[in-house]
């Protein structure tokens, strides 16, 4: 087990090198440089000033030198400094945005799993019942509607017309003058729309997935064996079928771990949430290379760990994968 872990972790090094190099390359090839963005709209910017800026950011060096320098800093644990006007360390910017995104996404995922798995089980064990048909309709509607569109509709309805919920940010302007209870209430009111929309759209896919996985398992021979033993349908479903049906869901969980940190660019932009998604989006627009690379690197690391975690969860759930 330990040697397996060591092997997997050692394998991460070349992978991360490859990922970071390709990202670096793609970013450098993208049209427009940070210097362009800073000088293009400024008629007073002379070619000399541009050169100075390029030199300042190290952009006058050949690409491989730039990558080497970046890599050298990374190895020392330094993600560099943002190109943007605030000139703050990349790490500070990320540690500011990360908890917000993480909190939102863990909430989303808990909500989605907590609802989708029971819905899937219920639909499968009562296939073609009224509830099953109703959730099927709901799921297809949920699938068919793009989340950003639903988000905008929900903002119009609950934010504008009904005026029940705030539509952007995570706190009201007078947040600091509220009592503790008021602050908690304010935070919850801000979370309802972004979390609700994300859960709604995520729920559709996962509950459907859980349902089909459960249906597949309920057709297996060992389920008949369990029934022939005299077990109640409840025990058959929850003790014999559920663990088998969860195996494929574990994959989805593993794949969603990087998303927990990466955040949703669209949702965070629409709801003006200062999380990782929005930070990444603005950094790309500003060609803020160090921030983009920092987020990419952290995303890559977390994706790899997510996959590893999914594999380990598989082993925990499925005895057939043990003793390898």
């Amino acid at each position, binding site marked *: 087990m330990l040697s397996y872990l060591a092997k997997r972790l050692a394998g991460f090094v070349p992978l991360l090198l490859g990922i970071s190099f390709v990202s670096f390359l793609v970013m450098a090839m993208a049209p427009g440089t940070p210097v362009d963005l800073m000088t293009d709209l400024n008629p007073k910017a002379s070619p000399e000033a541009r050169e100075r800026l390029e030199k300042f950011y190290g952009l006058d060096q050949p690409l491989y030198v730039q990558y080497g320098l970046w890599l050298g800093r990374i190895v020392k644990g330094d993600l560099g400094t943002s190109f943007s006007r605030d000139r703050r360390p990349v790490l500070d910017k990320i540690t500011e945005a990360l908890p917000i995104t993480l909190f939102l996404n863990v909430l989303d995922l808990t909500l989605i799993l907590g609802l989708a798995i029971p819905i899937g089980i219920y639909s499968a064990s009562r296939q*073609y019942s009224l509830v099953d048909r109703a959730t099927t309709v709901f799921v297809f509607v949920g699938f068919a509607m793009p989340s950003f569109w639903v988000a905008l509709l929900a903002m119009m309805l609950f934010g504008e017309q009904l005026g029940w919920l705030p539509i952007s940010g995570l706190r009201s302007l007078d947040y600091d003058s509220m009592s503790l209870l008021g602050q908690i209430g304010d935070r919850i009111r801000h979370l309802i729309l972004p979390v609700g929309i994300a859960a709604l759209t995520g729920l559709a896919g996962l509950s459907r997935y859980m349902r089909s996985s459960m249906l597949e398992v309920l057709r*297996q*021979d*060992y389920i*008949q*064996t*369990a*029934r*022939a*033993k*005299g*077990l*109640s349908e409840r025990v058959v479903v929850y003790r*014999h079928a559920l*663990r*088998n049906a969860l195996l494929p869901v574990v994959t989805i969980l593993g794949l969603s771990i990087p998303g927990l940190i990466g955040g949703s660019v669209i949702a965070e932009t629409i709801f003006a949430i200062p999380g990782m998604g929005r930070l990444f989006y603005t950094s790309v627009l500003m060609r803020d290379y160090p921030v983009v690379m920092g987020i990419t690197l952290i995303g890559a690391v977390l994706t790899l760990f997510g996959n590893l975690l999914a594999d380990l969860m598989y082993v925990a*759930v*499925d*005895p*057939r994968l043990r003793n390898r």
Partner: protein
Amino acid sequence: MTGSDTTHLLDVRGLVTAFDTSDGVVRAVDGVDFHVAEGETVALVGESGCGKSVTALSILRLVQAPAGRIVAGRIELGGTNLLELPEVEMRKVRGAKIAMIFQEPMTSLNPVLTVGYQIAEAVRLHRGLSRSDAWKEAVRVLELVEMPDAAERAASYPHQLSGGMRQRVMIAMALSCDPRLLIADEPTTALDVTIQAQILELLDSLRARLGMALLLITHDLGVVAERAERVLVMYAGRVIEEGPVDAVFADPHHPYTRGLLRSVPRLGRERGPLATIPGVVPKLNALPKGCRFRDRCDAAVAECASVDPALAPLGQGRRVACIVAAAHGGLRW
């Protein structure tokens, strides 16, 4: 051995089990009558799709709704009609009074639970033993089915066992609650020939030792001849011949049984192509009028097209569903 006067352990009367299919309602079991006496071995034979397995599943009421359902009939176990029991009471029959083992040992055990757990689960449910006592009991029944290193094997997962060992686990599970009737649905079909003999021998000796009845479902006539006392021959959802194995094999009354026996290869018989029954089994939703075997029958008479023959007694515990055979009083063909 005829068992017609004694009270039967299991009595199936006029059982009809139907399935909804895209081609309409199909009666996979269409009026089946038979009984099993205490401690006896009865073989249920017939081709694939003749309704053997559905009959077995019907006895345990495990035909999956909503597509499949038991439409008519009685299934009496010790005088109680199982078809009238509420589901909660039926669960106390399954695994405790009637146990079943299935054809495919590779897929009949849950891959994520240890075999010991799967056996102990039945013991805890029906005999109310504690978790640790049930585990000991699981080990004991594994020893009973001659599982090597039973205590160790109990902690194994199904994928760590061979097909033969898994079938031993299935048998152990079935016997763990001391059932009166064991239904074995093609218990050896999926196994190697050498393992087949071992498993059958084991089943037979355990049946004798524990004094339970065995309903052996098979399409292997050799197995029937060796292990069973009585035989039921099924064709297209009906029992068409019934009787003591020796008598039926020596002197089959129904033309279908005769055809079946002729198509078994025998050592020492002259070479040449094996005899076959002409035609194919009719689709259950497009059965011919009259006798359902008449299109393939070499003894059919004009009347066979209009009369649907019932299973008629011929004496000595024999019954046959054929007007020609019945008219000849079960005479030799």
